[in-house]
């Protein structure tokens, strides 16, 4: 295979549609979550370890930094999951047209925003 094939698509000249933004954010949130899960697993570990550990996780709100980390991780999880479910629906062939793709992107984005706000209310 010729390794120096020409690249004709100069994406910097293209205005991105909503579907492109939700897609790249899905990627970013996925990469972030690979690290973020460490925080969730740490919480599970501490909460199951002892009564003191359980209390410290229950009272996580006493530490604003932990609170903020938890919210960011939950936000990424909510966003990635909402977009992931959109993916699964599209894999079943629903909403694959240009219009359907855009509608779905807005819908999943709205769901994600609501979930992220709810997660914030829950954490604080």
């Amino acid at each position, binding site marked *: 295979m010729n390794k120096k094939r020409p690249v004709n698509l100069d994406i910097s000249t293209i205005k991105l549609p909503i579907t492109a933004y939700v897609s790249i954010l899905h990627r970013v949130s*996925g*990469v972030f979550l690979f690290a973020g899960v460490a925080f969730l697993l740490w919480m*599970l570990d501490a909460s199951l370890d002892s009564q003191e550990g359980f209390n410290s996780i229950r009272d996580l709100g006493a530490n604003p930094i932990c609170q903020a980390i938890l919210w960011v991780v939950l936000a990424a999880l909510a966003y990635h999951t909402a977009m992931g479910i959109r993916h699964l629906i599209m894999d079943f062939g629903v909403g694959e047209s240009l219009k359907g793709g855009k509608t779905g992107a807005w819908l999943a984005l709205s769901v994600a925003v609501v979930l992220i706000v709810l997660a914030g209310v829950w954490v604080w």
Partner: protein
Amino acid sequence: MVTSVTSFGRSGLYDWLIQRVGGAVMAAYTIFIVVYLVLNPELTFEQWQSLYNQLWMRVFTLVTLLSFISHAWIGLWAVLTDYLTVRLMGSKATFLRIFAQIVLGAVAVTYLVWGVQVIWGIN
């Protein structure tokens, strides 16, 4: 058919399916935990521990953990093979990508061992 030795299921179709099944399992686990915590606002330590002491909960957690690792491996493989490419950065790309995958593998195994310790270490 294009094959790659560093993918997960050794073919794009397997990877595609494993990634989706893993996503669905993780979504189910997330929803389960959220619903459980919302339904039990006065959760006690004993109650929480006894939930994780049940075999089905351990299996559910382990399956989720395995889903997480395979899903993330496949997903991060896709990311790495998109950006750390010979076209974008020359011949050092392959070396960098393999190095990144070794690190990822180490992190993934650490997650697995840690997770198993958490759910089977309950006393």
